[in-house]
């Protein structure tokens, strides 16, 4: 929470200074909206890379000298970088480079989403896990001395052949290696009800513990891989980049359809339906960033990433702002009612997010107190995201394209 407030303050300061630079008086056209989307995507992926690169330097420092301090610094850098990657999820499901499987059609397609953010993680496939009786089980790749730890061998194990397979890389693998399992263990009651605590992995896992050297190697490899994948995404979206160039050549209807299909689906299908609702129904640990207890912040990043496209504005890591023609502005030129509806639904979504964050509880605790029909804060956020998805689909129809939001 502190971090968000900090960002907001910086943003307010920056916004006050930069109002004059905004082209809000531009006549809203579809072409300008599409161009602004590309500017936002490029800036967001650039931030995702640079903040993750900072994380890498912290992880490198931790691996060079594992101490409580360097460990904590690496964890904090993960949490910070995650905010920027989380916002880029709005650019998924948009026929873009991140998750398009059709390798032949457009230059710059990477299809690395599975390597970057696949979930749930088969944590026992990577390293030791609790046996729920106070001991540990080591069946993972780190404990298998016969498995040569190389980038190629680990990629080979991750979502092999593009199947939803063993998840061995990406944000959540690094998260697991930094935090360990979040068992919510309460040492006083011996119950699993201590939601305030995240994963309790100690830095000694990288010094004196079994397989410490192999654990170091593994963390180093998956961190480097993530950085390389994010760098590829940044480069392909940058001006002159392969995908940016291909995107600029798309006809207007195709570009609009891709953009809106992305935010519509991510809002309704992915976040509301696939991430929040199953977590509410299926238990406390069916949450995205379960090891670090960062799922609230994932929600913040995902909701804001979608909102960035709707309002046509993105706040960069350095505090500057990218803004231009918004989705609501181009819709308003055709149908004020439909546009206002999206504005309302987007605002409601932000309000429900704020209400969830204001609880000051971890996501696992929040969902432990909810059911699908109890209308708690997580379900209310899910419902708001669903309605926002429907509103985006209506906007798409108004703009002359059809999208799929479930």
């Amino acid at each position, binding site marked *: 929470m502190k971090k968000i407030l900090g960002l907001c303050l910086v943003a307010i300061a920056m916004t006050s200074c930069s109002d004059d630079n905004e082209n809000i008086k531009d006549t809203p056209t579809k072409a300008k909206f599409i161009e602004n989307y590309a500017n936002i995507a490029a800036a967001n992926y650039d931030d995702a890379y640079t903040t993750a690169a900072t994380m890498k330097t912290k992880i490198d420092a931790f691996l060079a000298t594992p101490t409580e301090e360097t460990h904590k610094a690496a964890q904090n850098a993960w949490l910070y970088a995650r905010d920027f990657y989380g916002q880029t999820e709005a650019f998924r499901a948009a026929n873009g480079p991140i998750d398009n499987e059709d390798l032949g059609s457009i230059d710059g397609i990477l299809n690395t989403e599975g390597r970057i953010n696949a979930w749930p993680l088969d944590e026992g496939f990577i390293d030791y896990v609790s046996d729920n009786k106070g001991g540990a089980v080591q*069946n993972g790749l780190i404990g298998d001395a016969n498995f040569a730890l190389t980038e190629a061998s680990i990629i080979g194990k991750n979502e092999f052949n593009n199947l939803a397979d063993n998840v061995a890389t990406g944000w959540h693998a690094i998260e697991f290696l930094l935090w360990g399992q979040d068992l919510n263990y309460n040492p006083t009651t011996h119950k699993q009800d201590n939601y305030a605590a995240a994963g309790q992995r100690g830095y000694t896992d990288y010094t004196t513990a079994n397989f410490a050297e192999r654990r170091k190697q593994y963390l180093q490899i998956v961190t480097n891989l993530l950085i390389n994948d994010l760098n590829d995404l940044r480069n392909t979206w940058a001006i002159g980049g392969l995908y940016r160039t291909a995107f600029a050549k798309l006809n207007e209807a195709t570009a609009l359809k891709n953009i809106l299909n992305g935010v519509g689906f991510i809002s309704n299908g992915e976040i509301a339906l696939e991430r929040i609702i199953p977590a509410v129904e299926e238990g406390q640990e069916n949450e995205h960033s379960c090891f670090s207890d960062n799922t609230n912040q994932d929600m913040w990043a995902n909701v804001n990433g979608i909102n960035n496209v709707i309002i046509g504005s993105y706040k960069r890591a350095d505090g500057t702002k990218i803004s231009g023609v918004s989705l609501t502005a181009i819709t308003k030129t055709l149908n004020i009612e439909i546009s206002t509806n999206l504005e309302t639904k987007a605002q409601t979504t932000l309000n429900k997010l704020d209400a969830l964050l204001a609880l000051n509880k971890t996501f696992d605790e929040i969902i432990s107190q909810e059911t699908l029909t109890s209308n708690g804060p997580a379900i209310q956020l899910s419902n708001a995201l669903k309605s926002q998805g429907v509103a985006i689909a209506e906007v798409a129809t108004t703009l002359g394209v059809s999208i799929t939001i479930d």
Partner: protein
Amino acid sequence: MKNNIFFITILFILISCSKDDDVYKPVEFEYELGEENLVSELSIEAFNADKAFGRGIPSLSNLQSSFFGIGDAMFNQSWVSSPATTTSRDGLGPIFNARACSACHLNDGRGEPILETGASSKGLLIRLSTGNSVTTGPIGHGTYGGQLQDRSNLGLKKEASIQVVFSYIKGTYADGSTYELRKPNYTIINENYGSLVGVQTSPRIGQQLIGLGFIDALSEASILENADPNDTNNDGISGRANYVWNVKKDKLTIGKFGWKSNQPTLNQQVAGAFNGDMGLTTSIFPDENCPDGVDCSQLFNGNNPGENVEVPDKQFSRIALYMAAISVPKRRNYKEEAVLKGKKHFRDLKCVSCHVDNFTTGANEILSQINNIKISPFSDFLLHDMGDELADNRADFLANGNEWRTQPLWGLGLIEAVNGHTFLLHDGRARNIEEAILWHNGEAESSKESFKQKTKTEREELLQYLNSL
């Protein structure tokens, strides 16, 4: 051809009587109102390839759509080995074929055959048996059971690997153009739990998952209406129902799902896939699939406290709703002249005798919205002798080694968009729809031969029609 001439004569008479004979168009070329909606008003638009097969019927309630989302997540996400923090996704294995439903049915679509030895499967598995009982079904191998699991949890050996060798068969159309069919020969190698020599095998591809709730809702009587086991109408096509073990009802009931109609209900089909393909237990199939010589009671399983199966009934009901709710995409290009001509060829060639396009659903216990809906699955869900070349020579309840269930053709033309391939038939041998037609033998022999007599243009029109489904 006789029928055709007769028909044209009638048309001619009719046209002569009509006044505006300059707008003459044979009636069978015409678009029939609503024919693009294969499940009536519950059909969906296929805007995006990756979601063309994965969208629910439009009338789900808010709570149902939540269940749909939960089922969708369960379908797409990988299951993990126990113990794990993701308590609702653990219990995988000990031996398995895939970690997620979506691994064999990517985007709710169709699996792929193995194209080279050692390649990881994207939806092909091999069934095993040492015999068959018409009342209890195929008799599994003593050690390997009824299905070969080619993957395992860390620390355990997978059962074996799959080897493939292709042979090629050349053929000629009446117009002199030639074609080539590719026949795979799958064998099992590197058996880790003893030799499988002499065991009956049947390779099978994961099918696309559209419209399953509608099939589940078909009454036994509506399926039997098309059955003609003794070919009393002498059209060369018999068609008989399979009766298979229904675990919940504890008796034999009509089979509807699977390549040999060997599963009676959607729930049992899903529970069977959980158990055989992923090593997950349910109340329908509560026994862990355990390799020989391994004491599975000593391994971790995914049972949560107070539960005795890895996918408890409540969780199972969500994926069951998801499966039942997946709708069928509307047809495309249904008014194009070539497609309409292709529709006529489809009828003339008697394809429609087995690929039946006219059913009305009965009652569905999961989703009442799909009760009493007119549907066009293009299947009779009956068993037909498809000839020796396609045979797996492995009996399955009443199905013999030559018999296969008619495949529903709805969604056929979207497989390429959804899955990036056009491999068809039970083992994925056909590389496209044309090859699939050419593999038809047995009861379909005369239809296939008539197809080979058609001109290239006519053959193309038929393919365009099939691709529009």
